[in-house]
């Protein structure tokens, strides 16, 4: 009964917010903004609060410390086991009898389509635009460390997932925190799991939905010209509705096929540009290394570059946030550790490969303006001066456009598609958190899905800064709870790890002949 009341009050809150924001009148927009800012501002400030005496948000340090602890605890698993991870993705260790079930490759690519997106295109440009080329170095480092966080959370996601009688599965931090804590006799598991689920729902409505719709609209209007955001919102909402409520699988299927294609096209274009300027790659890496430790004149110097790099890596690959554990938990395997090993490729592909490539293209195509006399970057108002004054997606677009003139149009399509596929992924993450709290019923699911679609329209039509800030904060709040859970449960992963690798070494686990 309590749960039902809680659900109703959440619905009333959401619908209230929706009604208030969909009205296009600016006065109402502003009213909602200030109401939201005053009621949730404290939470946002708390999550993004800087460490005393610095401008370094403690939450970023929290993620980096977590990643470092996992890296050390598992003896640099991300470097030692990556070869085995690739063998697992190739299916060398998959039993042919399991054909038709979710393969490691499918679990990995599904999770990737939730993380590859704006972070790789816009986030990198923001990082370099503020932190200079050196931010790239810290971003790569954070990506490499984040691989260990993913490894831990995805192993646990599979180990403690719920497998229902009808063959469907549900997994994620809310399941491993509640079941794992109980198993180890630790207190507070149920509470932390519920807290995670609440953060995850808000994160799904915000960063996984409104932010994506908002950015997709911004991109479309940059090409088509200014038009009301609600049009984009309604179109997106209808498409999302058709997929998640209407069960029109074809749209989801098309997205899932087009998105990897766009990803390959994006990386391919990047590689071509780098090959065209192959003589400058060494110079670009020089800038990255030099900038990492000196800042090359950016605001805050080395620390400024470091903050931007770490922050954008965390935004981009979501390692430690717990979202990927939900996506990875559907895989068919009897060894949870194998999915952990596969998942560590995710931050590698997302951050180390794709983000680095974007960064190199921006640096090599000469988008960052430096002082010819001192060699230091020109900085104005805390930002590095760029060739055409652009920042964010526009900076990436200008960098690619300077080498391939028609690429910006393709980039708009890519951003829109990435946004759509990220929305679909987060609708699922949010739904899993929702059903964890309210039970797996058709009505409860429908309520969530309809609300999700309504928020697409809100996100696209309004420029609600505080709402977006709040939802970003929610995604990071997920990481606070999740990493506490990971610290408490990492001995479980260690046991799995030791057992698996000793059986692999003894030849008990071997490749299948196909």
């Amino acid at each position, binding site marked *: 009964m309590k749960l039902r009341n809680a659900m109703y009050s959440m619905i009333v809150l959401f619908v209230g917010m929706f009604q208030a924001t969909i009205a296009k009148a600016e006065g109402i927009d502003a009213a909602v903004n200030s109401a939201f800012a005053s009621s949730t501002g404290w939470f946002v400030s708390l999550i993004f609060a800087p460490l005393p005496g610095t401008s370094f948000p403690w939450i970023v340090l929290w993620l980096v410390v977590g990643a470092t602890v996992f890296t050390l605890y598992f003896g640099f698993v991300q470097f030692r086991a990556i070869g085995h991870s690739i063998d697992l993705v190739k299916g060398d260790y998959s039993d042919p009898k399991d054909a038709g079930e*979710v393969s490691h*490759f*499918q679990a990995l690519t599904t999770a990737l389509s939730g993380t590859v997106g704006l972070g790789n295109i816009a986030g990198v440009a923001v990082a370099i635009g503020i932190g200079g080329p050196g931010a790239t170095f810290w971003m790569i480092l954070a990506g490499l460390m984040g691989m260990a966080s993913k490894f831990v959370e995805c192993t646990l996601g599979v180990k403690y997932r719920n497998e229902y009688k009808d063959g469907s599965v549900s997994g994620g931090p809310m399941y491993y925190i509640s079941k794992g804590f109980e198993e180890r006799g630790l207190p507070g598991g149920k509470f932390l799991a519920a807290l995670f689920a609440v953060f995850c729902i808000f994160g799904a409505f915000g960063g996984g939905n409104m932010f994506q719709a908002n950015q997709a609209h911004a991109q479309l209007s940059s090409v088509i010209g200014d038009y009301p955001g609600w049009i984009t919102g309604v179109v997106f909402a209808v498409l999302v509705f058709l997929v998640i409520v209407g069960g029109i699988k074809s749209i*989801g299927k098309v997205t*899932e096929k087009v998105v990897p294609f766009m990803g390959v096209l994006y990386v391919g274009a990047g590689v071509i540009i780098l090959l065209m300027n192959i003589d400058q790659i060494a110079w670009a890496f020089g800038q990255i290394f030099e900038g990492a430790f000196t800042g090359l004149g950016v605001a805050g110097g080395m620390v400024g570059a470091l903050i931007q790099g770490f922050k954008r890596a965390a935004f981009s690959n979501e390692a430690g946030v717990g979202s990927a554990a939900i996506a990875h938990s559907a895989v068919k395997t009897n060894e949870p550790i194998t999915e952990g090993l596969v998942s560590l490729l995710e931050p590698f592909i997302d951050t180390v490969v794709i983000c680095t490539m974007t960064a190199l293209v921006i640096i090599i195509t000469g988008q960052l303006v430096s002082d010819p006399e001192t060699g230091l970057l020109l900085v104005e108002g805390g930002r590095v001066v760029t060739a055409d004054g652009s920042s964010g997606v526009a900076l990436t677009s200008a960098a690619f456009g300077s080498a391939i003139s028609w690429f910006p149009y393709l980039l708009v399509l890519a951003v829109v598609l990435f946004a759509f596929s990220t929305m679909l992924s987060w609708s699922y993450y949010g739904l899993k958190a929702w059903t964890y709290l309210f039970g797996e019923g058709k009505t409860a699911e429908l309520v969530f899905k309809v609300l999700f679609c309504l928020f697409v329209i809100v996100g696209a039509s309004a420029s609600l800064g505080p709402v977006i800030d709040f939802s970003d904060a929610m995604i990071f709040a997920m990481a606070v709870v999740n990493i506490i859970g990971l610290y408490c449960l990492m001995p479980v992963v260690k046991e799995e790890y030791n057992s698996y690798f000793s059986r692999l070494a003894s030849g008990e686990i071997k490749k299948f002949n196909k």
Partner: protein
Amino acid sequence: MSTTLIVGIDGSEAGARALSYTKRLATLIGSDCNIEVVYVIEWSPYSFQTPEENALRNKQREQAISVANERVVAPAIKSLADEGFAAEGRVLHGKVAHLLNSVAVETNAEQIIVARSSASGFSSRVFGSVTANLVMSSTVPVTVVG
């Protein structure tokens, strides 16, 4: 020594032709002939899926197998048994040509019997037909029924 024949069926009219030819061949071979009926559900471990599809995958796989069994494989086995042939069946997920061949190797079969698929024109030229793939890659003799 018994002889095993593999017959690939897919619930279509072509599959029925392959089955009736297999019966004829089995009659010629005599009482020592085993027939293995194989139905392959085309599937790749390298396709891209949504999270929801993944979560329901196990359930859908079971459903697909039971539907294929009920509608195609079981009736085929029954018709073979009714006519006095020793027959077994299986439903598998994967690539048709690859799986028919591996079942043949595994059961030490004499030959694989399939029917010419009806795909023609552009798509078969671009992607190649299942039959053509099987003929080109099989390590066991293949009979293609016209």
